[in-house]
């Protein structure tokens, strides 16, 4: 091994060139490799964010223009009833979606970790929705949730005439149908994360706890789950970014309706920027959305960096 490396180094530094140059190159190389990606994110993430912020201060309509109007677009946004519906919906939808996915994902992972026959098949079944976009499954979900076609009609067909499941067409409940479909898509992935976490744990934890005579639920609640905190954190991050980006889901399932009862900020922003020729207003809503993302990401990064320093 040593000879090989030496040989390689010999090849890497041609005779005559100064060894200092090669060494300096080696220290610069990692940064050089990172440079394109960093440049990309500076231009295409931060540059575009800045651009969006600038547009939110203009009266851009059909296409971007640069006539500045101060914070007028934000004032209009604050006075817009639909924006508040969308923002509230994101809170309701995001909270329920993340919460249910975590509980369901952790539950399924724990159950699946009990030496289950056909574990591979079940795991695939739970995981596959993540492979499909709502462009593919949207129509089916619309059918299943439609009172006249889907579950309600089916259950009534089995003889339960009074069964009612009309959330899709009920302005107060439509946002919950979004939760159902979103949970269907992402909870399997969370299950996989938890399963991976459980498999990564040391057996000694289980043994020690069992010697203590802890009951099974207690074991999981008190000992195992706290060990899985990093998993919970990764899952929360992934889920909340899915929630914030949810767009196809709304378009396919409810179209934001009935009325605009199930609108989300992403669809609000898209509708105003692209179909309603109000790029200024749309940009203002995008900036507020990004603010929301920041509010979630900063604590994550903070704790991430802090734990690294400690560990």
């Amino acid at each position, binding site marked *: 091994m040593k000879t090989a490396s030496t040989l*390689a180094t010999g090849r*890497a530094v041609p005779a005559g060139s100064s060894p200092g140059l090669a060494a300096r190159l080696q220290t610069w190389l990692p940064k050089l490799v990172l440079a394109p990606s960093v440049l990309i994110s500076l231009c295409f993430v931060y540059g575009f964010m800045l651009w969006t912020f600038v547009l939110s201060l203009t009266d851009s309509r059909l296409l971007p223009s640069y006539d500045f109007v101060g914070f007028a677009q934000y004032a209009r946004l604050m006075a817009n009833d639909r924006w508040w519906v969308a923002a509230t919906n994101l809170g309701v939808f995001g909270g329920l979606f993340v919460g249910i996915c975590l509980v369901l994902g952790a539950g399924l992972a724990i159950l699946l970790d009990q030496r289950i026959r056909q574990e591979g098949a079940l795991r*695939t079944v739970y995981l596959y929705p993540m492979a499909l*976009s709502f462009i593919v499954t949207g129509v089916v979900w619309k059918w299943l949730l439609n009172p006249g076609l889907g579950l309600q009609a089916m259950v009534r067909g089995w003889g339960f005439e009074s069964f009612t499941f009309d959330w899709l067409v009920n302005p107060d409940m439509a946002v919950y149908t979004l939760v159902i479909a979103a949970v269907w898509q992402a909870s399997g992935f969370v299950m996989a*994360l938890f399963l991976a976490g459980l498999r990564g744990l040391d057996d000694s934890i289980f043994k020690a706890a069992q010697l203590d005579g802890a009951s099974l639920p207690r074991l999981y609640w008190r000992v195992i789950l706290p060990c899985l905190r990093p998993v919970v954190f990764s899952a929360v991050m992934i889920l909340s970014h899915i929630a914030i980006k949810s767009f196809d889901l709304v378009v396919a399932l409810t179209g934001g309706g009935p009325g605009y009862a199930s609108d989300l900020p992403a669809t609000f922003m898209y509708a105003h920027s692209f179909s309603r020729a109000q790029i200024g207003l749309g940009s203002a809503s995008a900036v507020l959305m990004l603010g929301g993302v920041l509010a979630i990401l900063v604590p994550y990064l903070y704790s991430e960096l802090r734990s690294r320093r400690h560990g």
Partner: protein
Amino acid sequence: MDNVIRRQTPMARLLRALVYAALALAALFYLLPLAVMVLTSLKPLDEITAGTLLTLPENPTLAPWIKAWGEACTGMRCEGVGGYFWNSFAIVIPAVAISTLLGALNGYALTKWRFKGAELVFALMLFGCFIPFQVILLPMAQTLGWLGLSSSRAGLVLVHVIFGVAFTTLFFRNFYVSIPDELVSAAKLDGAGFFRIFRRILLPVSTPIIVVSVIWQFTQIWNDFLFGVAFSGHDTQPVTVALNNLVNTSTGVKEYNVDMAAAMIAALPTLVVYVLAGKYFVRGLTAGSVKG
């Protein structure tokens, strides 16, 4: 693991039955939409309106699949979604390859050649995962125009690489963090260079995380509609755009069975990837990507 319920007392047996019942019930929930899709795609049109969603087809037919693949109209071209299928592959394969390679190198540079500010660089890049794609549509279009890449396949691949590299970097960084630094420092002492260490030491153990990264990127890019519709040319549209055109008719009779077959065809590659590589996916996640 010995933590499982093992002894066959009646109580334990009951518990075990309950566990299986819960798992089976969950499986039903996850399978329901897929079942409806498959059943519908195999029914003749008149059976769809007659029965409920889960009625088994009386005269199962493959005609909708054949039509969806090669005959259905997606605009003026009535060639089905088959042709667009290859458009998608032509976009996905380079984009996945490039973004995975970049992610691996980034993750490696960030963890094994740690320099001042590496964490900050990582935090900066991580933010790229979270930007809603609708926001960057217009500025990206303008940039592609400046680069002379608008409506081209290369442009679309570039966009996917740009917004995928944050994710792949995240995966690889979290994976490489868990690989002992000693191996790398020993090699450094031996005078091995940056790329050589990567190739000889990191890459051979990276298979699980490469699988995770490839699956994730493949799914994301294959399923993308927004970038595909906005940045592709008229002859390079991906299959999701064709599917959208097929399903969203504004007039005329909706052929639900063909719609469903087309949806299944469009979803097939990602489904196959998940079914075949699902095991490695979980294994790859176990191997470290979920840790801090």
